[in-house]
C-alpha cells in the first residue's frame, strides 16, 4: 500500500472539533486587541458559538469513526462521549463567566480563548491514541488552566492558587513523562495498540515489573489531574483560590478528560498487568473517597467543601475503574457526565451568590437563601441531592451503576466502604440545605441580586440535565455501554 502523509478529508473531520476550538480561540485573542475595553464583554457569545460548533463537529465526526493523522488520535464513540462532556462543561463555564468577569471588572476575550484552548487539550486527551499525544493534550489543557486559575491578577488568592497548581502540576507531569519514556524503552513504541501487542507477546521479553513501574509512574500524572489520594493536596487550595467559574470548569472538564485518557491508556495498552494495576487503583479509590468525604465534614468554606466533594467523587469514579470491566467503564462515563452537570450547577450557584470579590463564600452566609431566592435555593438543593445520590437525579444512577459494576467484579469490600463513606458525605451536603432553608436570613442577604441571565441558563440547563439523567438514564447509559467496549 502506498503511504501518503497527506491526511484524508475524513481525518480532518475527525480533528474538526479541536480545530474549531483552536481557531476560534485565536480569533478571540485578535479581537481582544481590536475591540475597545467597552466591547470586550461582548466576546462571550463568540465563545459560545465556537463551543456549539465544536459540539456539532463532534457529532459529525462520530458518524464516521476511525483513526486520524497516522494513528495519533482515534475519534471513536468513546472519544466523542468525552468530547461532549468536556464541551458541555466548557459551555456552562462560559455561561457562568460573562457576568462574573463583568462583576470583577475583568472582561476580556483572552479569558475565553484560554478556556477554548483548555478544552482543546481535553478533547485531544479524549481521543489520544498515542502517548506523545496524551502528553501534548495534557499540557495544552493544563497550561491554559494554570493561567485561568490565576486569572484575576490582582487577587492574592488567585495568584497563590495558580502558582500551587502550576508547580505541583509540573512536578506530577514529570512523573508521567518519565513513565512514557520507560514504556518507550520497554516496548519501543508510543502507540497504544502497539504497546498492547508487544506486552501481550510472550516473546517480546518485556519485564512485568518494569512495565508495572512504568504504568504506576504514568498513573501518578493522571492521578494528580483527577485529584486522587495521595495527589489530591493541591485541589482544595486551588479550587478555593481560583475564580468560581474556573473552579467549576476545573472540577468537571479536565477531570473527565483525565479519566478518559486514563481509561483508554490502561484498558487499551496494559491488559497484561491487570492484577497489580487493580490493587493500586483499589487503594487509591478507597483513600480518595475517605479523605474527600471526611475532610469535607469540618470545612466551612463553600468552595472548599465542593473541592473536597470533587475529590470524593473522583474516588467513586475510581471504584468504577477498579472494576476493570466494560460495565465499569460505562459506569465511569455515565458518572462523569452526570457529575459535570451537577457540580457545575453547584459552583454556578456559588459563583452567583459570592458577589463582587467573592465576598460571601462561607457556609453561614447562605442562611435564609430559601426565603430570599427560593428558586436558586431549590436548584442548589437539587444539585446537592444529586451529589448525595438521591433517586430521580443523575447522581443516583451514577452511583448505582458504579457500585453495581464493582459488585459484578467481586469488589464487595470496596463497595461497602465506598457506600459507607458516601453516607458520611450526605452530612456536609445536607448541612448546606439546612442552612439555606432553616436559618433566618442575616445581613448577607441584603445585597443579593437576582442571578444574571447567563447564570440562569447554566443553572436551568444543569438542573434539567441532572433530572433527565435521573429519570431517563438509559439514553446516556446505552451510548456509554456501546462505546465502553471500544477501548478494551
Amino acid at each position, binding site marked *: 500500500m502506498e503511504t501518503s502523509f497527506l491526511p484524508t478529508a475524513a481525518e480532518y473531520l475527525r480533528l474538526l472539533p479541536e480545530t474549531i476550538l483552536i481557531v476560534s480561540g485565536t480569533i478571540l485573542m485578535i479581537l481582544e486587541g481590536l475591540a475597545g475595553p467597552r466591547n470586550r464583554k461582548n466576546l462571550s457569545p463568540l465563545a459560545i458559538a465556537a463551543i456549539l460548533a465544536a459540539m456539532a463537529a463532534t457529532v459529525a465526526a462520530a458518524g464516521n469513526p476511525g483513526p486520524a493523522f497516522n494513528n495519533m488520535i482515534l475519534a471513536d464513540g468513546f472519544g466523542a462521549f468525552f468530547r461532549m462532556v468536556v464541551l458541555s462543561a466548557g459551555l456552562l463555564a462560559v455561561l457562568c463567566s460573562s457576568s462574573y468577569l463583568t462583576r470583577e471588572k475583568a472582561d476580556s476575550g483572552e479569558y475565553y480563548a484560554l478556556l477554548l484552548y483548555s478544552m482543546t487539550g481535553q478533547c485531544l486527551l479524549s481521543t489520544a491514541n498515542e502517548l506523545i499525544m496524551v502528553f501534548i493534550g495534557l499540557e495544552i489543557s493544563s497550561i491554559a488552566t494554570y493561567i485561568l486559575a490565576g486569572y484575576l491578577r490582582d487577587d492574592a488568592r488567585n495568584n497563590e492558587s495558580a*502558582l*500551587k497548581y502550576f*508547580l*505541583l502540576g509540573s*512536578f*506530577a507531569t514529570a*512523573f508521567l513523562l518519565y513513565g512514557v519514556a520507560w514504556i518507550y524503552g520497554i516496548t519501543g513504541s508510543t502507540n497504544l495498540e502497539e504497546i498492547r501487542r508487544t506486552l501481550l507477546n510472550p516473546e517480546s521479553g518485556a519485564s*512485568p*515489573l518494569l512495565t*508495572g*513501574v512504568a*504504568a*504506576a*509512574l504514568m*498513573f*501518578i500524572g493522571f*492521578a*494528580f489531574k483527577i485529584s486522587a*489520594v*495521595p*495527589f489530591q*493536596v*493541591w485541589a*482544595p*487550595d486551588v479550587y478555593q483560590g481560583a475564580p468560581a467559574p474556573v473552579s467549576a470548569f476545573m472540577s468537571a472538564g479536565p477531570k473527565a478528560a483525565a479519566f478518559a485518557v486514563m481509561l483508554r491508556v490502561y484498558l487499551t495498552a496494559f491488559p497484561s*498487568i491487570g*492484577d*497489580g*494495576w487493580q*490493587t*493500586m487503583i483499589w*487503594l*487509591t479509590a478507597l483513600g480518595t473517597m*475517605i*479523605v474527600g468525604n*471526611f*475532610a*469535607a*465534614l*469540618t*470545612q466551612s468554606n463553600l468552595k472548599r467543601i465542593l473541592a473536597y466533594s470533587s475529590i470524593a467523587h473522583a474516588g467513586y469514579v475510581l471504584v468504577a475503574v477498579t472494576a476493570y470491566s466494560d460495565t465499569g467503564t460505562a459506569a465511569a462515563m455515565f458518572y462523569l457526565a452526570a457529575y459535570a452537570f451537577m457540580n457545575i450547577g453547584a459552583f454556578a450557584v456559588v459563583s452567583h451568590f459570592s458577589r463582587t470579590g467573592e465576598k460571601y463564600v462561607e457556609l453561614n452566609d447562605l442562611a435564609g437563601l430559601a426565603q430570599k431566592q427560593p428558586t436558586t435555593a431549590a436548584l442548589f438543593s437539587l444539585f446537592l441531592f444529586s451529589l448525595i445520590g438521591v433517586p430521580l437525579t443523575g447522581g443516583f444512577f451514577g452511583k448505582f451503576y458504579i457500585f*453495581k459494576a464493582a459488585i459484578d467484579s467481586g469488589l464487595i469490600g470496596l463497595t461497602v466502604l465506598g457506600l459507607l463513606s458516601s453516607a*458520611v458525605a450526605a*452530612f456536609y451536603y445536607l448541612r448546606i440545605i439546612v442552612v439555606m432553608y432553616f436559618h433566618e436570613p442575616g445581613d448577607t442577604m441584603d445585597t443579593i441580586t437576582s442571578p444574571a441571565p447567563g447564570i440562569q441558563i447554566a443553572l436551568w440547563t444543569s438542573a434539567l440535565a441532572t433530572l433527565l439523567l435521573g429519570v*431517563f438514564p*438509559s*439514553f446516556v*447509559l*446505552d451510548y456509554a455501554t456501546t462505546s465502553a467496549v471500544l477501548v478494551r
Partner: protein
Amino acid sequence: MHHLWLIPALPLAGFLVNGLFGRRLPKAIINAVAVGSVLLSFLWVLQVLNGLMPLETLYVERYATWIASGSLDIPYELAIDRLSAVMLLVVTGVGLLIHIYATGYMSHEDGYYRFFAYLNLFMFFMLTLVLANNYLLLFVGWEGVGLCSYLLIGFYYLKNSATTAGNKAFIVNRIGDFGFALAIFLIFIQFGTLDFPAVFSAAQPLPAESTAGILTAICLLLMVGAAGKSAQVPLYVWLPDAMEGPTPVSALIHAATMVTAGVYMVARSSALYLKAPLAMDVVALIGLLTAVLAATIGMTQFDIKKVFAYSTVSQLGYMFLALGVGAFSAGIFHVVTHAFFKALLFLGAGSVIHALEGEQDLRHMGGLRKKIPITFLTLACAWVAIAGVPPFSGFHSKDEILLAAHHHAPWMYWIGVVTAGITAFYVSRAMFLCFFGKYRGHHHPHESPVSMWGPLAVLALLSLGGGYTHIPQFLAPVFPLAEGAHDFTLVAISVAAGLTGIGLAWFLYIAKPGLADSIASNLGGLYKLVYNKYFVDELYFATIINPAIAGSRTVLWKFLDAGLIDGTVNGAGHMAQWVGAKCRRLQSGNIRTYATWVVLGAVLLIFTIGGVR
C-alpha cells in the same frame, strides 16, 4: 406510531403550567389549561382509537429502556387493547365532565390553581396506570393516583378532619400497596419479567392450581393491593372519610376512576387469576361481603356524601364479585355504568350542597325538587340507574353480574339480590329526604350555574342509556363472554328487589314519615351497630392502631431510636468529625509539604504495583 404518550402527557403539561405558574394566572387561563388539556387528551384517545379500530389485539408502543439491570429489563412501554380503551374513554370522558363541573363548583375557593394542578396530575397518573404495559409502570401510576388522592382529600388543609382523612387514606393504602409490591416481586421471581404479555403468556400453559401455590399467592397479594385502592373489606375504611375532599374530587377520584383501579388491575391480571381458583373465590367472597356491609351502613347515614360513599364501596364490592366469579367483562361493564351514575350522584350532591351553601345533612334538606329542578331531574336519572330499574344503565351491568354469580353459586346471587334491594332503598331514602316533603333547612337554595348542570345533564344521558354500550361484547377479544344463559326469572327477581327497595323507602319516608325513626329506636342495639358502621374504626383503633402507637412510643422511640440509634449515630458522627479534623491537618497550605506528599505517594504506588507482581 399513534403517539399514545400524548394521552398522559397532555394533562401532565397542564399540571406543570398550572402548578408552576398558576398562582399568577387569571382564573380563565387556569380553566383553559386544566379543562383544555383533558379535552385534548380525550380527543387524542378518540383519534388513537379511530386509527386502531377494531383493536382486536394488543397494540404496544415502546419508547426507551427504563431500567436494565441484570435480568431485569423494564421498558417505557404504553399499550392499548380493548380493556384499556374502555378505561381510557371513561377516565378522560368522565374526567373531562368533572373538570368542567369543577370550574363552577370551586369558583369561590382559595387555592384554585392548586386544585386544578392536582386534578390534572391525577389524570396523568391514572392514564399512565391504564396505559402501562408492565406491572412496574402500572405501579408508578398506582402510587401517583394515591398521592393525588391524598393531596386532594386534604385539600382544605386548614381543616383538621380533612388532613386526618388524607392521612388515613394514605396509610390504609400503604397496607394494600405493600401487598401489591410483594405480588410484583413474586411475579418477577416466578416469571422473570414484569411485562404483561410475557407474564400472561408464560402463565397460559400452567395448570390451574387446585391447592394454594405460587400463583394463588401472587393473586391474593394482588388482591390485597386492589382491596386497598378499591376500598374492599377490610381496607375500605378510608373511602368514607375521603369525602372530606371537595365534591368533584369525590366524584372523579373516589367514585368514577381511581377506586376502580383495583378492579382494572385484577381484570388485567385475569390470566393469572384463572389459574388460581382459590384466589378467585376469595375475591368473590370479599366482594360480596363488602357489598352487603357497606350497603347496610348506607341505609343509616345522614350525610348525603357519606351515603354515596358507602354506596360506592358497596358497588365496588359488586365489581369484585363479578371478577371473583369469572365475569371479568361484567365487572368492567359495571365500572363503566357506575362511573356514569356515581359521578352523577356525587356531582348532583355537590350541586345540592352548593345550593345550600355547604349543608350536607339530609335531615336539613327536603322539598328541594321545586327549588333546584335541574339538579333534581339529573339526580333522578342516576337514581333509577343505580336502583336497577330497567332499561337504565345500572340494570344491565348489575344483571350481568348477578347472572354470572348465579351460574357460579346460587347463594351468591340471592345475597346479591338482597343487596340490590338495599341499594335501591338507601338511594331512594336519600332522594326522598333531599327532594321531597318539606324544606327543613334555613338557607336559600339557588340553582347551580350552567358549567355545573351541563356536565350533570350529559352524565344523566349516559346513566340512562349507558347500558346499551355493549361493553361485554366489545371486550370479548380480551375476556371470554360470561357463561350462563339470560334467565328471565332471575332478572325479574332482581328488578323486583330494586322496586321493593324504592317502594319501602317511599313508604317509610313519604307515606308514613316518622315510622323510620320508630323502627330505628325499636331495633335499638342493631340500629346503633349499623349506624356506627359496625364499630370497625373503633375495632381497628383498639386492636391495631393504639397498640402500634404504644409500641412505637416505648420500644421504637424511647429505646431503639433515642437510645440505640441516636447513641450509635452520635458516636459515629463524633468519630467522623475527629477523622475529618485529622484529614484537614494534611492540608498545611505549604507547597513543599505538598510536593513531599506527591513523592511519598509515588513511592507507595510503585511499591504496591511491584509488590503484587
